[in-house]
């Protein structure tokens, strides 16, 4: 258990640093490319590379947002429910979301494998480098969902004790 938690913290740290670094890199790249185009030295690959890095930021960012509970829903009805029902529903919702993400991960990986020979228009790099961001991001989010579900399950006995 302790090991899992340490591993999770380690992954989270990497996610943060990588995504921040990538975003900063994209900005420098796009800014530099715009400047070079103005002085008539366009970089043909800059847009492709920026987009490639961006999809990684998106999927890692989606996981970080989940970590911080930023993916909001509508709690109008669930707020009226007793805590036990709310928790059961939250667990169900997590399971559904995880299944959905698993679907993207599986088909995304297949897509990356099938299209491995497709290259970006402006640079000699397989398009799969971008596509793989989806399965990786989904796997990270499934892990976060599992962690949150586990937290919900564990909170239960404690709540009973208090009652």
């Amino acid at each position, binding site marked *: 258990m302790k090991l899992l938690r340490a591993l999770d913290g380690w992954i989270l740290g990497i996610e943060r640093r990588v995504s921040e670094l990538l975003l900063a890199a994209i900005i420098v790249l796009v800014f530099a490319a715009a400047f070079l185009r103005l002085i008539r030295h366009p970089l043909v690959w800059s847009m492709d590379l920026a987009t490639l890095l*961006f999809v990684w930021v998106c999927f890692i960012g989606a996981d970080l947002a989940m970590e911080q509970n930023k993916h909001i829903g509508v709690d109008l009805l669930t707020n009226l429910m007793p805590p036990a029902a709310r928790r059961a529903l939250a667990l169900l919702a997590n399971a559904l979301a995880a299944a959905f993400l698993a679907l993207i991960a599986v088909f995304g990986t297949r897509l990356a494998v099938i299209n491995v020979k497709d290259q970006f228009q402006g640079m000699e790099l397989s398009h799969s480098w971008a596509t793989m961001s989806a399965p990786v991001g989904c796997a990270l989010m499934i892990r976060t969902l599992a962690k949150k579900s586990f937290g919900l399950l564990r909170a239960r006995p404690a709540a009973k004790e208090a009652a």
Partner: protein
Amino acid sequence: MTLLALAFVALLLANVPLAFVVGISSMTFFVGNADMSLMVPVTKMIYSAQNFALLAVPFFLLAGNLMTECGITRRLFDFCNISTGHMRGGLAHVNILLSTLMGGISGSAASDAAMDCRMTAPEMIKRGYSKGFTAAVTAYSSLITATIPPGIGLILFGYIGSVSIGRLFVGGIMPGFLMCAIMMLTAWLISARRNYGRSRERRATPREFLKSLVDNIWALLFPVILIVGIRFGFFTPSEAGAFAVAYAVVIGKFVYKELTNDKIVEALRQTVADTGMIMLIIICSAVFGYVIIYNQAPQAIAAFLVTLTENPVALMLIIMAFLVVAGMFMEPTVNTLLLTPIFLPVAKSVGVDPVHFGLVMMTTITMGSFTPPVGVVIYAVCSILECPLKDYLRESLPFLACVLVLIGLMVAFPQIVLFLPNLVYGG
């Protein structure tokens, strides 16, 4: 389609995050159809994020985060106070004007409302403005931020509807200022009746005003540079976002000297998570967009609406009425992504200009964050200010009326939106 709609409502009510509500319910369409491979929706989703135009989203979010970190907000607050503090209900005007000026830097209503909750609102409550009034002004004035360029909502609308983001930006200027004027008038009327005080004893001298103007020139100049740069092709809207970030870093580090490296990292961290949240919705909406186009839903809805009326004004009012209701229950980003592909073709088919439609639609949709029962900004503002919901609701009615009047004006007089873009870009 029925299964999709049922799944959508069920998941929505079960408090599933909105992105997954859209994604999972859209998937039910494929699960039922044995002859359709799941490869198609997944491909749509993954490729939807690989779009250079969407880079504008994190860039403008980051630029906004950086500029609030580097002291621009506090300086703008002083400028607003010098400009309007001597009026009746001074701080209410400061609150509204600050949202207008911040609109030229930040592109998100929610972040503007959060900023105003910290800057202006506590001061208002301390000086005897009612909590409900303070919360209502803070929430509703943030709509101006979303309209004045740059605006994240307009970028998303332009991306989904293939409408020029440059034109949308310019089109937001007049409605933004008009909204500022209408809201200030309303705040003034209410303040006069309740005897709310002023935040300055006398009108600022031209000299004081000029000094504050110079102090704020970098923030005030920014939206102008942005529009000029995009119009004359120095940069695309996405590149303009990167420029905005560079601009914020340079001003924060070398002019105001308040931006530390720690603050930059903090702004990056915040932006990555915000981007991830918005992009997950975009990714999941890609399937939905595919399903409704596959089903020719826009054509069906257009055909139905045209049987009601072919008058563009009446048609737009019907659509806006629907958007007001949709805004009550769903978050603006989701509404933009789901409803633009449905309603924009309808509007175009009766000859409504897409830029005109976009501004009216985004104003209506963004208002959804301030209307009950579901509203992101309501919850943020009321919880930070500890304002009871019913006080907020009662005091927000005059401002709701302001926005509805403005929407009506924009629908009836397209030139309010289109005059400037046609002037700048040519009709």
